[in-house]
């Protein structure tokens, strides 16, 4: 099997504040295989955006790396300084479209001005070279060519998001990381944006996608692999189909049960609730971080932390209920 495009091993990163440490990423292993679309799912505050910043080596105080390594396409990111990473990694090896990017564009600059600034961070290029690069890419992706000379406010939300994705992959990065790219869009526009993500992958502009979201039904439609994050830890991962249709971890199950879709299966299942709220990351509960809310919690769950263990196939789960079965 070829080496995965992105490997994060044993990653821990805490926010060091006066009030204490926020353990936002705590011993996480994650990998993005070549050619895959990996979904990273979890609720707000579970650490998914922090994990992305760690994977990008975009770490500035108060966020501090405690340990771990990130290998991206064979490069050890934590061995590079920020200037090198900015020049040789961001936009070239990996591009990141953060949440709400579509409302974060400089309103006084046209799209082409934004692109020019970005491209020149990485290579010397004349205006006409940059314009023709843009044109070619817009044609490839069936985006209206006049989009490049527009100001951000002249484009609709969906068009703006597609333009952002097109220009952030202009230099053919191997990996694209998107964080909630469609949360502000209506469902039809959302589908167009997702279609375009698939297109840039099948056109081999990029190799893999890491898709961060709390919307599981989206991942069901596009992801090949899924990681479920809870309170700074990965609790379950594996092929999307297995995780979403036969979840093993009680938290993953609860998440799946909370998805309401207009399908008979959803309506028949009805409303299944779990008590409580996600814990504070300053003082996470001992043992399994989900145990105070877990309907199947056993004695051991509050004492020992379950490791993330591969059980069946490529599915890994951090839960004692399933470990016993794997050992036996």
């Amino acid at each position, binding site marked *: 099997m070829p080496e995965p495009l992105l490997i994060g091993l044993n990653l821990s990163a805490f926010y060091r504040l006066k009030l204490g440490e926020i353990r936002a990423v705590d011993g996480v292993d994650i990998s993005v295989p070549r050619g895959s679309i990996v979904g990273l799912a979890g*609720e*707000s505050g579970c650490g998914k955006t922090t994990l992305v910043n760690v994977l990008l080596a975009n770490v500035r105080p108060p966020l501090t790396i405690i340990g771990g390594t990130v290998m991206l396409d064979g490069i050890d990111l934590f061995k590079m300084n920020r200037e090198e990473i900015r020049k040789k990694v961001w936009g070239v090896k990996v591009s990141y479209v953060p949440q709400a990017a579509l409302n974060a564009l400089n309103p006084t600059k046209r799209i082409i001005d934004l692109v020019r600034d970005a491209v020149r961070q990485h290579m010397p290029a004349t205006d006409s070279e940059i314009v023709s690069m843009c044109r070619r890419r817009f044609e490839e992706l069936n985006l209206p060519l006049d989009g490049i000379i527009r100001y951000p406010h002249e484009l609709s939300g969906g068009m703006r998001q597609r333009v952002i994705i097109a220009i952030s992959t202009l230099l053919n990065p191997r990996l694209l990381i998107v964080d909630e790219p469609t949360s502000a869009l*209506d*469902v*039809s526009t*959302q*589908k167009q944006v*997702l*279609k375009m993500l*698939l297109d840039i992958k099948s056109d081999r502009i990029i190799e893999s996608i890491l898709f961060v979201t*709390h*919307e*599981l*039904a*989206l991942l*069901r*439609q*596009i992801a090949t692999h899924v990681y479920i994050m809870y309170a700074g830890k990965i609790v379950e991962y594996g092929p999307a189909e297995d995780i*979403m*249709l036969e979840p093993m971890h009680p*938290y993953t199950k*609860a*998440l*799946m*049960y*909370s*998805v*309401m*879709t*207009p*399908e*008979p*299966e*959803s*309506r028949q299942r*009805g*409303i*299944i*609730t*779990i*008590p409580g*709220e*996600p814990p504070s990351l300053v003082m996470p509960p001992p043992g399994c971080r989900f145990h105070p*809310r877990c309907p199947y919690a056993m004695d051991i769950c509050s004492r020992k932390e379950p490791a993330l263990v591969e059980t069946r196939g490529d599915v890994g789960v951090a839960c004692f209920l399933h470990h016993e079965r794997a050992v036996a």
Partner: protein
Amino acid sequence: MLEARNITKLFRTGLFGREKVLAVDNATMTVRRGEIVSLVGESGSGKTTLCRIILRLIAPTRGEVFYDGREVTRLKGKELKWYWSKVHGVFQDPYAAFHPFYRVERVLYQAFNLLPPLSDDEKKRVVHEALTSVGLRPADVLGKFPHELSGGMRQRVAIARCFILKPELIIADEPVSMLDASTRMGIVRLFKDVRDVNRSSVVFVTHDLGLAYVVSDRILIMYKGRIVEEGDPVEVMEYPSHPYTKRLKEDVPLMYRKWGGF
């Protein structure tokens, strides 16, 4: 029980009000006793405007709202208070419902202004009961300021008002869209409880077709200010008739079926 008949709302914007926006266009909807109805539409469809008209927060340009056969569109003073004790709103942003300078119980005690007078002891007892009904321990909430509670807890406090007022109709505008997955279902459950315990009717105003499908007895689909389709949620999704509903059905992400071409 409630009927909003031929409601139209025209907003004037721009210089001297020369630009017109038709937010609600001749919409008619009814709500029966004990029923959960969802009003589904995307942002800008006019669903929030229609619900604010029903709540008597804004006046319609044309059309009337009837409650128990009585026209309520022009009620004032005491009679409007009577209407507000029967029809109650719960909103999307549980933060905006609270004044940040006051302790959270203030919104609960304010509800008593709409009710016949009670003694302080009775009020206290009713508040404790209401908080318990929404799954909160009074000691965790009373005396706290809004920022000390999580979003889910704040929304529970907002719903606790429904257990004090016992309104006959609750209009909930996107009540769970700002909440996370694991807390969302608990809030949805509460609305079902309010309906089952108090026999209140509930109108969910939402962009979330899945929520509407799962919890409602009846759904109304709103598009560009009009109600374009109405019926039993299972039937509407199985046999949508309006092109907009058909498109929704095709584009909404599902869990048990995959999109073609993806």
